[in-house]
């Protein structure tokens, strides 16, 4: 079943090559929907087993090096798998009439992202981590805006260079397994039992962390982001922001924290500072951007910084909040980028100074955009708020000062998102507005974005399923890390609500 999940988009991509050009979009959409269906069918099996993974399939791949083709599914990978499948399905069918290559690359991007989330072997993780870059690069370079070539190269170099550090780190872990257990191994459950000297942990952790921080991106490793986000077509930006950034955050939870617990504690303050810098910096830059897409891009920098802060706090509540916010961000960032893409198309510009008048000309589009913006700025009762408050509470339990600083961004978020919405919706329509075309969003696109909007409300009023799904994997993470804060957290565990 797990292989099916991973191979479905690949098979879909191959079959697309046989389909006629005009059926490519439909075919790709069906492949993405099937993948989503399979990921939903797998929900029960993620919780079936008592072992580390609810479902694990492992085949020896390269025996001499101890490499296994191992895919595993637990609550943590499940929620991100569903998120990926959902986001892909929505994004792939969003824009009509692209060449077949576009859809093929899109499906490959989905497959490799799924592979990263499902990998139970570091080698497999690395293969997909690298493989993911290729379709992403080609999508930016092939279908982006006027300055796509530079953006794509920047993305490529930023992605590849730190991955080499990660490769070194992975090989070091495999070698340590050889030293300690007598045979090479990259299997995550096996590597759990490694006892690493602190100095090794520090280096290995740093290798992973840099690769992850660049991919999220976090300040000051973010300078590939503005160009890549701005130049990519909206659905690709949505994938970059909603899915690819999550692979890095997932890497922290799945690999960096549990395998290198001592280093995690040593690096946590540094990660926290980076996270805080991203939060504030992203928010402040978002306030000044004239390019609407970059406002959303920098808001992502800020919000993912908050997720990173939840991870860096190393408290169980913080981790729960981080995963919840990863899911939330995936959903609203997708909707933000896609809807803004439509607005851009209708108005012929992304310059906020020039945009305007959407509320009068396309009230449905404006309404959908408003709900999404409000979710993103963390309006209580909508989805973004639940993750925010859980993260901030988790951070507060351990590092009250961090939480205080991070809270500032909540005010700033309100300011820049409202500014974004008002510039787009109010005032008069720009001169570049497509004169004959309909300013309103199409019916197909409403149907595509509707599930995201519904999820914003559902997860806002009842976010509990996500923390419940990931509680076991995260408990095992906190056990390995030996969360210093648990003692403090349990003191107040008789908690709240009632």
């Amino acid at each position, binding site marked *: 079943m797990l292989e099916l999940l991973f191979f479905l988009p690949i098979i879909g991509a191959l079959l697309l090559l046989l389909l006629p050009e005009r059926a490519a979009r439909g075919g790709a959409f069906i492949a993405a929907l099937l993948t989503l269906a399979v990921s939903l069918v797998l929900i029960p099996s993620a919780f079936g087993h008592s072992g580390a993974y609810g479902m694990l399939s492992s085949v020896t791949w390269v025996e001499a090096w101890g490499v296994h083709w191992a895919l595993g599914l637990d609550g943590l990978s499940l929620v991100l798998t569903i998120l990926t499948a959902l986001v892909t399905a929505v994004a792939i069918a969003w824009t009509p009439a692209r060449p077949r290559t576009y859809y093929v690359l899109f499906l490959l991007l989905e497959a490799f992202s799924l592979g990263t989330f499902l990998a139970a072997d570091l080698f497999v993780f690395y293969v997909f981590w690298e493989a993911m870059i290729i379709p992403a690069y080609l999508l930016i370079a092939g279908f982006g805006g006027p300055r796509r070539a530079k953006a794509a190269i920047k993305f490529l170099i930023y992605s590849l260079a730190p991955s080499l550090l990660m490769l070194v780190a992975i090989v070091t872990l495999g070698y340590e397994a050889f030293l300690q257990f007598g045979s090479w191994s990259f299997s995550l459950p096996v590597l759990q039992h490694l006892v690493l000297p602190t100095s090794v942990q520090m280096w290995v952790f740093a290798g992973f962390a840099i690769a992850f921080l660049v991919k999220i991106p976090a300040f000051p490793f973010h300078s590939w982001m503005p160009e890549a986000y701005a130049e990519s077509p909206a659905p690709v930006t949505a994938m970059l922001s909603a899915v690819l950034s999550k692979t890095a955050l997932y890497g922290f939870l799945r690999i960096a924290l549990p395998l290198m617990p001592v280093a995690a504690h040593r690096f946590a303050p540094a990660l926290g500072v980076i996270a805080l810098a991203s939060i504030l910096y992203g928010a402040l*830059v978002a306030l000044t951007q004239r390019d609407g897409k970059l406002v959303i891009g920098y808001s992502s920098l800020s919000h993912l910084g908050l997720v990173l802060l939840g991870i860096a706090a190393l408290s169980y509540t913080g981790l729960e909040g981080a995963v919840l916010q990863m899911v939330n961000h995936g959903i609203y960032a997708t909707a933000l980028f896609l809807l803004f893409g439509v607005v851009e198309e209708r108005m012929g510009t992304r310059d906020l100074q020039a945009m305007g008048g959407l509320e009068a000309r396309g009230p449905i589009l404006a309404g959908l955009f408003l709900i999404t913006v409000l979710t993103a700025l963390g309006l209580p*009762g909508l989805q973004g708020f639940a993750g925010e408050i859980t993260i901030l509470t988790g951070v507060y339990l351990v590092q009250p000062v961090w939480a205080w600083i991070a809270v500032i961004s909540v005010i700033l978020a309100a300011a820049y998102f409202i500014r974004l919405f008002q510039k787009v919706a109010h005032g008069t329509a720009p001169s570049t507005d497509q004169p004959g075309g309909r300013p309103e969003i199409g019916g197909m696109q409403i149907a595509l974005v509707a599930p995201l909007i519904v999820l914003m409300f559902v997860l806002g009023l009842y976010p509990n399923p996500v923390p419940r799904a990931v509680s076991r994997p995260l408990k095992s993470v906190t056990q390995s890390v030996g969360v210093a804060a648990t003692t403090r957290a349990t003191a*107040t565990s008789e908690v709240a609500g009632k």
Partner: protein
Amino acid sequence: MQDAIGILLLPALGSLIAAVFGRSLGRKATSYVTVGAMALAFVWAVSVFLRMLSLPPAQRSFDPVYWQWIKAGSLSLHFGLLIDPLSAIFLLIVTGIGFLIHLYSIGYMHDDANFQRFFSYLNLFAFAMLVLVTADNFLFLLVGWGAVGLASYLLIGFWHTRPSAVSAARKALVLNVAGDVGIMLAIFILVMTLGRVSYSGVFSHISSLTSLQVELIAFLLYLGAAAKSAQFPLHVWLPDAMEGPTPVSALIHAATMVTAGVYLIARAYPIFHAAPVAAEWVAGIGAFTALFAATIALVQNDIKRVIAYSTVSQLGYMFLAVGISAYAAGIFHLTMHAFFKALLFLGAGSVIHALSGEQDMRKMGGLKKFLPITYWTFLIGTAANAGVPFFSGFFSKDAILGEALATGHFWLWLVGVVAAFFSALYIFRLFFLVFHGTYRGDGHPHESPPVMTVPLVVLAIGALLGGYLAVPGAWNLFDQWLAPVYSRYPGGLLPAAATAPNWGAIALTSVLVLAAVWVAWNLFGRQVREELPEGLRPIHKVLYNKYYIDEIGHAVFVWTVDRLAVLADLFDRVVVDGIVMGIAALVKGWGEALAPFQSGYLRRYGLAVLIGGVFVVAYLTLV
């Protein structure tokens, strides 16, 4: 009382239906659905109230829990409602007065192109306020709190083609979000220190907090309350909020939104009882706001702006009351204010409607004969707002002032009394300028349709008779009704001596109010004084410009944030991009230095291979 959630769901459903199907339903059906939802909700609230009334006072509190919102480690929160005498009052105000405003809007918004959207927002506003007042924990209070802010944003900016409406909406939202953050921080401290956010959990464990923590929590809650309830210096959004359609102003000022801050402090009284410094602060700023806003209202020319500042001033009284623990008196004034303020705004709306959008009082006058129903109902609202004896505002305001004096807050009482004089002066100035003298405009005023005047009459009855719920020296149904809420935790009830009427004080304020009416009549009633005496001009200018609070706030906050943001943007481009580009330039430089070796001549490469080979062989053989 499990069914009380229905009161919340009705407007939510109405809002959803109006938003999604509004266009296909058409105007009429949409207004039936949304106004009907409010009517049903009101009936439901009345039934809750009656059921509560039939129970003995000690059993009038219900806390049904519906679902677990989130459980993440040490954070565990539920969604539940708290239905007790205090929230019952608010249920009645929000649904009852909300319903009248809905009804009135059918007439007022009749010609608006976005009729359905407007009603969807109105229902949303009511729903948000209902969540706020019925939540059984601080978290869902905050959910309602934020949603109220959103709904007000949508409604204030409803006429989004007007730049002033857009900027007013943004101002309201940003200031409200700043308040939300205060409450959010208070919640963090509660979770951190007590591990609880439910009212019952927090209030029964306050004694385990240090006094510093309690003061901090109280101040943060106050920050939220002050932002929502327009306390100095966070009041700047409220007068601008009149940029929305007039029913919206009525809803914001009377039934929903601004009362939320008073509700919060009245609800969280055990916290404020344990935080005397914060409580004094609440009362002090309240009294100051009452006087401060009243003086501004004296000189404004826009009819809605005067009423808006009057709201700020009246909210000051309510905060004064809850700050000195006179909770029942504060809620009493809030309820009376809901009646007469809704009445004043809807009356002003009727005037504006009659004059086709004119809001400048200098172009009104003599409207008494054109708008008889509006005139008489407006007179009742004016008298109530001024605190003219035997109108509702008289009873509630004097209850607050009396308790302030009795609890030893002499200076607060004095400020309150002076503000009462100004209140009567500004509101009668408005009344005489609008309805007396001769008509100074050039339109054809006409009375509003019944769908607008009927709510006026109903509200006027409330503003006329509501005060008799608590007649000093005779009975006080309000105190009785709220007693079970305020006797549950320490600090809720004032000593009996404090609530006894102080006839001397009542007489003094009554005389002052009547004197103010007389002054107003002489200055504005008989003929309008255009020219100001020379000596008063600078004062007039300061007051007219609202003490320049907006400009100061703009200079301090907006300027700072803008500079910071520009700095960050510069940093991004110069330093971060600079480093990256520097690395890129370094690599490129190396490449250029090495490029000449790649000459493109095949035979030159061959020669290089040969020479290299010779060197290798030489090395191997010779060394």
